[in-house]
């Protein structure tokens, strides 16, 4: 492409040295003719002194401003592969950045959740002989003793609840006072954090449910109870203090599970009747949450 144009005049070209400077000046000012400009541009690629001379003609404040913005953006980075993917899905960048401050999305937290799930899985495996994840995935007959699932059923939704609670407990936000003093809507912040914590924890829990020796519908059946428990906690947080709300919601899950386990019906908690009850609870809580969203504006409580 460039070979179609004749070679640009070299630094020593031209009848007099200063004509080069005039040409550069007119190019910088935008008054050089097109063809003259082309030859300057072709020359620029190869000649460093001319590039430097040209750079001196730009407003230094403008250059400095762009430089500092560039260095800040380079320092911020773009958050990694996950963030880039989510950004391409259309989620606004500023909401994604808010997630960076959520404790329950940090690697350390997620690894701890994985750890707990691993312990539960190991415990279940120890109790049911001949069980391996491969057998479970292959759909081989599984459930010998429903009781072995009780710890998992008890703990799994609580893990999800813990993730969501971490999103709105004030004690876990070190810059809490600044968050309160900022105009950003407390409710939006809460939702963004809670939903992403929920999604992350739920993904892990459902994945664990797949490899446990339980009924085939166990993974799907965990969704509604987990969502209901988290919904309860959020709705309660609009009425009472945050920590109390989380504890209350957790208790409201633990009690029925233990009760049904006492009656030797541990899996009833994930039966369709219980599922519909969870769905109903979820709807009511969502409604309450929407109605009372102003109460999540942090700080001023009355």
């Amino acid at each position, binding site marked *: 492409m460039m070979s179609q144009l004749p070679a640009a005049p070299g630094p020593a070209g031209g*009848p007099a040295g200063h004509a080069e400077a005039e*040409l550069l000046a007119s190019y910088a000012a935008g008054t050089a003719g097109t063809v003259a400009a*082309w*030859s300057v541009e*072709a020359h*620029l*690629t190869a000649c460093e002194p001319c590039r430097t001379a040209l750079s001196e003609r730009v407003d230094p404040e403008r250059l400095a401003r762009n430089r500092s913005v560039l260095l800040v953006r380079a320092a911020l980075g773009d958050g*990694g592969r996950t963030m880039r993917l989510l950004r391409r899905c259309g989620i606004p960048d500023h909401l994604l950045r808010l997630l960076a401050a959520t404790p329950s999305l940090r690697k350390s937290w997620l690894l701890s959740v994985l750890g707990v799930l691993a312990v539960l899985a190991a415990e279940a495996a120890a109790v049911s002989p001949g069980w391996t994840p491969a057998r479970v995935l292959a759909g081989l007959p599984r459930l010998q003793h429903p009781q072995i699932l009780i710890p998992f059923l008890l703990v799994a939704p609580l893990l999800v609840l813990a993730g969501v609670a971490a999103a709105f407990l004030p004690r876990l936000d070190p810059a809490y006072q600044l968050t309160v003093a900022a105009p950003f809507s407390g409710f939006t912040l809460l939702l963004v954090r809670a939903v992403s914590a929920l999604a992350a924890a739920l993904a892990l829990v459902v994945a664990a449910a797949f490899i446990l020796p339980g009924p085939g519908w166990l993974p799907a059946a965990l969704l509604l109870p987990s969502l209901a428990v988290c919904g309860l906690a959020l709705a309660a947080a609009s009425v009472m203090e945050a920590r109390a709300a989380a504890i209350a919601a957790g208790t409201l899950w633990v009690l029925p599970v233990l009760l049904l386990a006492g009656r030797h019906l541990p899996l009833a908690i994930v039966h369709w009747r219980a599922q519909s009850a969870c769905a109903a609870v979820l709807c009511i809580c969502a409604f309450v949450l929407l109605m009372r969203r102003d109460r999540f504006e942090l700080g001023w409580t009355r």
Partner: protein
Amino acid sequence: MGNQGGFRLRQEVRGSVRRAGSAVSADECDDVALLRAVARGDEESLAVLYDRHAGWLTIRLTRRCANPDVVDHAVQDTFLAVWREAGSYRGGGDVAAFIWGIGVRRLIDAIRKENGARRRPPWHAEDPQVVVSAEDQVLLGIEHGQLGQALAGLSPELRGAIEATVLDGLTCAEAAVLLGVAEGTVKSRCHRARAALRTALADPLGTPDGMPPRREAWGTP
């Protein structure tokens, strides 16, 4: 893949920017060495590259788009892209050309973002009164000769199309964004420009070097 790893490594860097072993000050390195340092995650080298190249890049981009905010965004995005993609520089050709290649594409993106697809961007059209001056002809006439005069004989729209597709190496779609016209218009302008150049070169109406060119013939947009 190698660069991806390098980029992630950069993100995990804790502590201050200074990296051990940077014995040579960034100022003394040539551009290729700077680019390699940037690929390793050295922010100071990025700053030095910026200091060396941002000025001429700003002016060169301003020739293609008069909106200074859009040009500022493009310059920032260019060096951000250099920060991320320094590893993709394969050592062929000047660093300046590498930066320009990134820069012009970032300008296209910035224009696209600025305008959507509806408004025309403020195309930095030449003032119709300005023709290639006699002095410029003297300067370039020896090198350009017939081709220069033939090019100068084109209307601004046709010259713009040639500049975007030939000189800047953009595709027709990209040139369309830059010029603010439809892609088909770009294609037809290039076609007409090449035809006009063929005519002008085959039948040299150009007078000996030093004479002012013919009156510009405006093509219809």
